[in-house]
């Protein structure tokens, strides 16, 4: 029995993406994949498990392995759910970092958009991410079903955490910006809250499953909400989101007043990184942030 289960599990790659033999690919039926059900992950029991895992598992872990600074939470004070959190995305750390940075009341009402083709390709990954991060599948290829669940969640009053780039950055800088988040904000008249994440690429870039040693500093900075204006189209709102994120990034690198000044002058540094060969952008992005904590008096 065990042997048979093992044979089936290995043959059908239970723990990985199922594959189709090459010679059979041409004969595969084009079928709309069924969406992995995630409604259960927003039940009270799942919420309780999630809160426990995030609070007593991920937060100590992330805060031990890295040195995060969370700023701008006061921007959430007078906001009402639902809102759309939009953040730049460079690392698998981003989601636990943001969720653990949010106040509990916000955290437990926030769902995270996750790529259907990556996080929902095998059952165990789909189920575990849905439980721990309250993820829901989003089709990166677009199509009519791409944002169906997102709409339903917004309609039910859930805050969404969306990475408009759709994938982790390959060089640590902002990638191609997709407009789905802006469209949803306009459609439902909900505000977008920009979040600038700095240092996560340096701490745990693509290809790593654990942060680099040395408790590298990270920064999570929440910005003021951006409300869609009357008659505004999604491109305009997307542009404002990017500008807000760039200013937040600049604020984190300098200070609030200087970032405002540079924004007014139009000299806010771009989020696409330095021009030139790719290595320059990777080089800059992988430079650890300066430490903000006071140096230890008693060094080992």
């Amino acid at each position, binding site marked *: 029995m065990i042997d*048979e289960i093992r*044979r*089936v599990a290995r*043959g059908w790659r239970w723990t990985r993406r199922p*594959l189709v*033999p090459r*010679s059979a690919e041409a004969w595969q039926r084009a079928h709309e994949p069924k969406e992995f059900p995630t409604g259960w992950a927003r039940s009270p029991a799942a919420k309780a498990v999630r809160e426990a895992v995030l609070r007593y598992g991920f937060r100590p872990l992330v805060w031990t392995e890295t040195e995060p600074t969370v700023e701008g939470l006061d921007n959430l004070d007078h906001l009402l759910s639902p809102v759309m959190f939009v953040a730049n995305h460079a690392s698998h750390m981003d989601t636990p970092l943001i969720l653990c940075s949010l106040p509990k009341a916000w955290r437990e009402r926030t769902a995270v958009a996750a790529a259907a083709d990556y996080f929902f390709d095998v059952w165990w990954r789909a189920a575990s991410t849905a439980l721990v991060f309250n993820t829901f599948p989003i089709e990166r290829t677009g199509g009519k079903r791409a944002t169906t669940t997102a709409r339903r969640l917004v309609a039910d009053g859930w805050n969404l955490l969306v990475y408009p780039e759709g994938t982790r950055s390959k060089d640590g800088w902002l990638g191609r910006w997709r407009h789905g988040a802006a469209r949803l904000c306009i459609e439902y008249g909900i505000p977008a809250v920009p979040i600038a994440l700095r240092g996560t690429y340096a701490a745990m870039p693509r290809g790593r499953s654990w942060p680099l040693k040395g408790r590298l500093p990270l920064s999570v900075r929440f910005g003021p909400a951006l409300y869609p204006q009357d008659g505004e189209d999604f491109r305009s709102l997307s542009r404002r989101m990017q500008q807000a994120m760039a200013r937040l990034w600049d604020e984190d690198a300098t200070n609030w007043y200087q970032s405002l000044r540079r924004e007014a002058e139009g000299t806010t540094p771009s989020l696409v990184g330095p021009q030139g060969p790719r290595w320059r952008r990777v080089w800059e992005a992988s430079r650890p942030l300066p430490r903000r904590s006071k140096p230890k008096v008693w060094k080992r």
Partner: protein
Amino acid sequence: MTRPGFVLEVDERTPPLLVHEGEGFRLQKFPLGTQVFYPPDSLPPIRDVTGNIRQALLNPHNSEPLPELMKPGMSLTIAFDDISIPLPPMQTPDIRGRVIEQVLEIAARNGVDDVKLVVANSLHRRMTPGEIKRAVGERVYRSFWPEALTNHDAEDPHGLTYVGQTDKGEDVEINRRAAESDLLVYVNVNLVAMDGGHKSVPVGLGSYKSLRHHHTVHTMLNSRSYMDPSHSALHDSCARMGRMLANHLRIFTVETTLNNDTFPKPFTFMNKREWEWSLAEQGAYVAAKKANDSGPPRIRREVFQRIASPYGVTGINAGETEAVHELTLASVHRQQLVEVNGQADVMVVGLPYICPYNVNSIMNPILVQCLGLGYYFNLYRNKPVVRKGGAMILFHPVPWEFHQVHHPSYIDFFDEVLSETTDPAAIEAKYEQQYATDPWYAHLYRNSYAYHGVHPFYMWYWGAHAMDYLGDVIFVGGDRKAVHRMGFRAASSFADALEMAGETVGGSPKLAYLHCPPLALAEVR
């Protein structure tokens, strides 16, 4: 749109493939590069079967509509295929019963009183009342059993009519009632390309005197293959007899075809291509495999024999035999044909628990041979799947086990004949007459539920072409004594079988696995 049949080339992405092995099945890893032949997806079934039957009877091919052939005072005989097809038996209502009901509706409306129904069981065992009832339906059974609904008796001296000889000197002798009727309606289920056409009446209602002309080693060796009637000496002989009969009596043929929905729940995974198995189907496989392997043999057989296929009907054609059969064959090919490029060195097959002659019975070693070297080897058109001198690897336990009631002559054939020689021609020359005319076997055939005394010979001849053509035949997991008695070799594992086949075909042979059932017919180019 139904996907056509296709040839899979095993690569590192291919999961283990389902292989039948008698009353069991397994997942087997195949060497990279093995070609696997899958039949087309199951064709969509006809939704309004009753309406289609009616239309077929009212608009026949090359014939007047059936109502015009029915007159008061006439004698009508309805013959129908026996339990040997379809395999597994189809879920009720059986298509034969549905057609017969429609024919009888017309007969009743047209004032026909003299109606008889005959099971065209040829030299097969008689069908039991329960089996007949299942095939024809309760209404027909209640109206006609037992006086006017009977099994054909090929040994009844008063129940046969000698019609004459063909231009090749073949005797034609068939059921008297059928031969003397004003109208014979033959209702068939055409499961594979060898069935139906002129094979129905001359064989199904024939006697040994008639069958001995085409059920011979010579015709088998000259049927390339008998699944391709246009290149089959067997079918040529049947056609000569059928045409002669058509000149003597009015035959109205109704042929039906089925799709490839072979296995019902919870065995539906057996109908599908493995990499398309859902998680539930993978679970069903594990559960079924475990239950089957650990169950007692009797229960296992009982479960398998109770499988009834949820076949859908894909074609109903009626009228003159040859015109109808052409359409029937097209329908069969649409469902089963898979185009293959080139021959392989080794052909691999997994033999299931059932063949035409062990429904509700036991598949004895001779039937295993017949299914593998007869039917499976011949599932080709143009050229055999395997090259001349190649090897064939068959998965089956080949148990030394016989059904005492159904297969008495098989027991003696296995003990007495095969222990002396396995050469079909030598067996035919020395033993056939003795068994065919043995009064005890004839008695059991007529009064019990035994296959005719000559039947095991025909089963042996069925594999004559393969035995002559192949260089090696290896049974994986086969009972060594039984396999050796038949002149073949047994291997304990597939790897061993490949190693053994290497002695015949050399190293790195080209392998072809015929993934069947569901049924596939290889068109080898």
